């Protein structure tokens, strides 16, 4: 509306031609722009610094000395870091496979069935998502202690499965909420058995949810520190835990380089997960 007026009265001086921002034009308000810039700086400046200083040619890593890639090289040749990284990947893969299987089944069951105490059950299911990580970590540690399970790569994996699968269940369930049950009936009507129906009709529909859930579980496991720290034993250091121990000695650009690799990895996986989810969302709207 405001621009219409400006067009109709071209004779007005330039200073008065710029109309006042309407209530919904947030981006044009100066003070809102300032708040926004502050927020971006607050959120991303540390990450940008971390990445920038991974290229810093200085052992102390306090002031900028010049560009180098040698700390990446050093990080890649650090055997402890390498082992920790490999271990993290193995744990993340195991945790992803198991938590995706459990989470997908749970998501489907929650969508499909009505049973007594379903409400409270769902509430309990989401507990690992909302509970403070430190509590979950302590709980896991004392649980394994009570059962006399030696802490190590197995206990880390079990703990990762425990906090990952509810995320998968949530994603799969939300995917299923758009499912047309008559698709399954049509399949049965056309002569398919219940298992043929599941594999030919239901599972393909669930797939985008399962993939997105799996990628989510993978990144959750890969960058988890607190729970891993509490459930790891000697010789089972993961990548984030290893970085932490390196930082305790001194913050070298090598730590920055290793962290940057982790950021890039989780960011990639998260973007792929979001892309798959949004793509499947658009598809189901179209059909």
């Amino acid at each position, binding site marked *: 509306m405001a621009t219409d007026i400006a067009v109709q009265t071209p004779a007005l001086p330039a200073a008065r031609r710029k109309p006042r921002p309407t209530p919904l034009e947030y981006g044009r308000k100066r003070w809102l722009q300032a708040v926004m810039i502050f927020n971006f700086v607050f959120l991303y400046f540390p990450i940008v610094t971390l990445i920038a200083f991974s290229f810093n040619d200085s052992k102390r890593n306090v002031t900028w000395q010049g560009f180098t890639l040698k700390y990446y090289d050093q990080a890649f040749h650090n055997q402890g870091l390498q082992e920790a990284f490999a271990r993290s990947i193995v744990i993340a893969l195991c945790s992803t496979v198991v938590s995706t299987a459990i989470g997908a089944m749970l998501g489907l069951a929650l969508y499909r069935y009505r049973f007594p105490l379903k409400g409270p059950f769902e509430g309990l299911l989401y507990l690992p998502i909302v509970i403070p990580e430190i509590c979950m970590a302590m709980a896991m540690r004392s649980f394994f202690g009570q059962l006399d399970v030696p802490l190590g790569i197995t206990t880390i994996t079990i703990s990762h499965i425990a906090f990952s699968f509810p995320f998968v269940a949530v994603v799969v369930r939300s995917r299923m909420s758009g499912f*047309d049950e*008559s698709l399954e009936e*049509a*399949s*049965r*009507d*056309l002569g398919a*058995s219940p298992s043929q129906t599941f594999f030919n*009709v239901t599972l393909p529909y669930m797939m985008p949810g399962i993939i997105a859930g799996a990628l989510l579980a993978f990144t959750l496991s890969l960058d988890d520190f607190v729970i891993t720290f509490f459930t790891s034993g000697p010789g089972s250091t993961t990548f984030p835990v290893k970085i932490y121990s390196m930082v305790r000695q001194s913050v070298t650009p090598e730590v920055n380089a290793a962290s940057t690799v982790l950021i890039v990895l989780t960011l990639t996986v998260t973007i792929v997960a979001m892309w798959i989810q949004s793509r499947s969302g658009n598809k189901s709207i179209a*059909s």
Partner: protein
Amino acid sequence: MNNGKTIISIRNVYKRFGNSVTAVDNANFEIAEGEFFALLGPSGCGKTTLLRMLAGFENPSDGEIVIDGQVMEGVDPDKRPVNMVFQSYAVFPHMSVERNVGYGLRVTGVPADETKRRAKEALELVKMDRFAERMPSQLSGGQRQRVALARALVKRPKVLLLDEPLSALDAKLREAMQLELVRLQQSVGITFVIVTHDQDEALSMANRIAVMESGKVRQIAPPAELYEYPNSKFVADFIGKMNLFEGKVAGVDGNQIVVESRGLGRFSVPHSGAAQGEVGIAVRPEKIRLDRDKPPSDRVCLRGRVTELAYYGDESNVFLENETGVTVNVNVANEARKTAAAFVIGDELWLSWNPADTLVLTE
């Protein structure tokens, strides 16, 4: 097409949900081979539940369903000689049109080359062969419905079940599809059972119609019989437009009975069968004639004043009220081309109809 052989028998079928809801209440009828049979009723009358029991998605709480000589109790949907076209079409979104149509053959182990050939034939039958490679998201609603039809017909079922197949289409397309479904049914010779809440759809397509109300089958008859001789006030009111008056039987005179209604007065109508006490007196709006001069005395005559007019193009709906406050709806066909209304609000007119067109409804 109808050779008199029974294909579906529904015997004393009940369907109860929980303790209080009886969705189908003692359904008891037969459908002959080659019939185009419609289950018609308002939403919630149990017609879809009955159809789903034929398909095998619901089991009767009581009673028996026999399809093609085989008792259906304990027979899963995939083992029944029927196929269904769903209201939502239920076209598999992740399969191409051709794979959708071939699905029912693939899962039952029909060889790949035969599947391909029969899928192609089925798509030609519904004129969708040009779209074989398309994905469902690239099709319109009408095209998806054709795919759903082809997918069901490719199985060569004994009976094709259609659940409100035209409800999602716009009016023009719906009319075209009505004609096409009838043509299709005649060319494949399969028994069609269609569920609909749209009386025009049922009247124009079906050979026989079962009208249902709150779980009960109220009347089963061919379209014209259902329209001209409804057996109850519900059917009379549900099918088409109807003027319904409360009245009572005042006497019997040979094969005529004398009925009396407060607003209409007393007149005799031909009626076979017993009728006494309180009855419903009904006459269709298009059977009533409007005149400025007094009509001949062998017709049932009333005097009324025009209170409302509704113009529909092909016909006009005139509402009249007589001095006792009874409202009568009259349909006038707009036969000649003119823009001026034949009647205006406030006109005093004679209404008349042939006594033989009067319905006396005891139920």
